[in-house]
């Protein structure tokens, strides 16, 4: 199969998400699609996969022009896409999820579907439990399920939009191996959208770069990262150097803390984090690191033990009380837990205010919002709603809402889905916070980020916290082993 994308345009109001993009894709290749947040990558991929129509331009498959009016019609013509959040149906059983939209017959043939599922998943090295429900799977497994479904549907072109955010290192290896197999052995075309240049270098043989809705060039891979970054941003953004910092006195101490929920219990947490220190927590999702953070934030109650903040015992305090003593918690789900999708930036500023009067001074709050927009370089207006912002700008807003003097910042996936520049920007903000003596604890699935940004690191595996390692002397390999349970 040969795919030609010709002069695709897609405007959202005044935003030119795709502004005349032309690309050609050849059989058997793995292409990287690169560009900063908001460059138009997802928009282009959704057009190619029939999720949304372009305003103008055409798509040619083997020289024949095609218009897709739905993802199903794209799949029937051999184009399938794995969305940033898998488009599956969490409450369904795996077989139901696989069967939905598969064939036209009235009665469902469960037996045939099960054997097809088994055959395909073992062919690509996926270990799926056929009896389970989708919502009991990890994100990586849900992706595998989607891939199997697309392949069963006859996909010759597979698009993966940021597939590695939120999956484990092993799942990433499994995914990449299956992608290689699909391209090299079966001659399929794969497209990988990613912000992680290391992944693109590892997997792809060619990369397209988009900027502000336009095609700006392509590169044979491997090539120097700087080249790619320069094309993505128009200049090489200054590498954020991690400033050295004199750590202060202990700010947070955990003494024999036990936390248990019906899913998981974490025993005997002992930890001391100093003022100005950045402490990274690694581990597979659901291994206990989130419980630690939530216990410090006052969102879960420890069964026993003590949590001391700056000499004050805050064990079992509520979230509102810990907030009042300058603990901030930034949850992973930006739009689920952190921001309110339909509220404006000004309203967010009002919600985040420390003292609340009964009447809101909207004029002052609007000015406050404007000044934060400028200071944190958010692309938006005081009256834009949170959901209109691109991912990177939502994250900036979250940080823009934090109070000034904080003792402790608790972060989950602080840079998930952000491009290199936004990631550096966020970390520079956090580095500045250290001047005030703020201690920072963060969770990240990205081991490079953990090692690069932390002073010290602990790894969680099955509810057990490892020994604490020094970020300067450890390696991705060592942390990887610890995640695997070799604490």
């Amino acid at each position, binding site marked *: 199969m040969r795919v030609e994308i010709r002069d695709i345009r897609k405007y959202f109001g005044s935003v030119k998400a795709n502004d005349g993009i032309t690309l050609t894709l050849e059989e058997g290749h793995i292409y990287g699609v690169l560009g900063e947040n908001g460059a138009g990558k997802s928009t282009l991929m959704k057009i190619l996969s029939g*999720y949304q129509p372009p305003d103008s331009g055409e798509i040619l498959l083997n020289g024949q022009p095609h218009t897709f009016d*739905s*993802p*199903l*019609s794209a799949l029937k013509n051999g184009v399938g896409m794995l*969305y940033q959040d898998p*488009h*599956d*149906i*969490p*409450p*369904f059983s795996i077989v*139901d999820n696989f*069967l*939905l*939209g*598969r*064939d*036209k*017959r*009235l*009665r*469902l043939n469960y037996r045939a579907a099960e054997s097809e599922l088994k055959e395909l998943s073992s062919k690509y090295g996926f270990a799926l439990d056929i*009896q389970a429900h989708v919502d009991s799977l990890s994100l990586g497994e849900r992706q595998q399920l989607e891939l199997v479904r697309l392949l069963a549907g006859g996909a010759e072109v597979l698009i993966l939009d940021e597939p590695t955010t939120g999956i484990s290192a092993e799942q990433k290896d499994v995914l990449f191996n299956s992608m290689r197999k699909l391209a090299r052995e079966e001659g399929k075309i794969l497209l990988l959208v990613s912000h992680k240049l290391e992944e693109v270098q590892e997997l792809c043989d060619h990369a397209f770069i988009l900027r502000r809705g336009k095609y700006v060039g392509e590169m044979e891979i491997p090539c120097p990262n700087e080249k790619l970054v320069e094309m993505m941003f128009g200049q090489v953004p200054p590498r954020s150097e991690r400033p050295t910092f004199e750590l202060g006195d202990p700010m947070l101490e955990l003494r024999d803390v036990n936390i248990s929920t*019906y899913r998981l219990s974490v025993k005997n947490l002992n930890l001391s984090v100093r003022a100005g220190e950045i402490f990274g927590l690694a581990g597979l999702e659901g291994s206990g690191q989130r419980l630690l953070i939530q216990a410090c934030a006052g969102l879960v109650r420890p069964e026993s033990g003590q949590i001391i903040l700056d000499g004050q015992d805050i064990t079992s305090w509520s979230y509102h009380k810990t907030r009042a003593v300058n603990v901030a918690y930034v949850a992973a789900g930006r739009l689920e837990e952190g921001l309110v999708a339909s509220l404006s930036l000004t309203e967010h500023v009002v919600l985040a205010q420390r003292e609340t009067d009964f009447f809101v001074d909207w004029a002052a709050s609007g000015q406050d919002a404007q000044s934060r927009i400028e200071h944190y370089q958010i692309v938006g207006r005081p009256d834009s709603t949170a959901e209109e912002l691109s991912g990177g700008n939502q994250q900036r807003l979250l940080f823009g809402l934090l109070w000034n003097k904080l003792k402790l910042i608790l972060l989950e996936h602080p840079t998930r889905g952000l491009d290199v520049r936004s990631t550096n920007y966020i970390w520079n903000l956090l580095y500045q916070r250290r001047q005030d003596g703020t201690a920072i604890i963060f969770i990240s699935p990205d081991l490079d980020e953990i090692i690069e940004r932390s002073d010290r690191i602990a790894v969680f595996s099955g509810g057990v916290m490892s020994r604490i390692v020094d970020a300067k002397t450890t390696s991705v390999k060592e942390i990887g082993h610890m995640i695997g349970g070799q604490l």
Partner: protein
Amino acid sequence: MNDSELILILASIILQAAPLMIAVCGETITERVGVVNLSLDGTMLMSAMTGFVVSLKTDSVWLGFLAGAAVGALFALIIAFGTIRLRQSQVAVGFVLTLLGDDLSAFLGQNFTHIPGPVVKFMPIPVLKDIPILGPLFFNHDMVVYFAFALVGLTWWWLFRTQPGLHLRGTGERPEAAFARGVNVNRVRYLYTLIGGALVGIAGAAYSLNVKIGWAEGHTRGLGWIALAIVIFGGWSPIRGAFGAILFGATKALATVLQRIFPEVSVVAFNSIPWLLMILVLLIVSSESTERIIAFLPRPLQRPLRHLLRAAPPMALGKIFGGK
């Protein structure tokens, strides 16, 4: 009370529960596709009145049922149009329709109150009716009861064993994903909202033509709300919903018996028994403590039990679909 008396009581519980079973089935279908038809109480009043009046005028109960179904479908169409096309809140539109149905049925039906009319013919099924116990319970009734049971089975089969049923459920759980698999989300929502509404309409007519025959202002008032509650109680499954409808009828019968035994206790106290029971069961079924208890059981038992007790509403219930 001897055995045959008990069987008689049980048979009459089933007879009375039939309209409720039909309404619960209808609303289960509607909610499974992601739409809440909150107008059930108004719809049932309107269709009970229309069904009775039409069958009185035409002397045909079948036309009465047809009219009831048409009224139910019409109300559902307003819900579907208002929420899918005009993107209004499902709760608001449904609530307004409830009030409308109540008043409109009282107004339009005022000349037809407390008069006798045609009845659904009693139709015992030969041979089957002579099976001990089961015969008199299930096969000694009329078409409405048979229809109710057949409907429950058919609905279950459709929902859980067919491709269109999968489309239906997928649309109610995650319309974006269903759309990506080629489901025409809005058309499916229209279709099943109408079918669900028509069934609720049949249920209303079944009440005035088969249970409490005739018409009076507020004839079925409350029944729609009960059906809505039983849909939740039944965990959006037609079989569990039907079970809930019968259980509800049984507790009501029990309340009547208890009231006879303890005449000094207020009627209201006994009338609230079914509700209390329902809340209790809901608490047991959907609490975290159940999850804890299940976690202690042997592994092979856990999954079927979780599946059985799974009582989460469809994920996209009441939400407007933003796509095409």
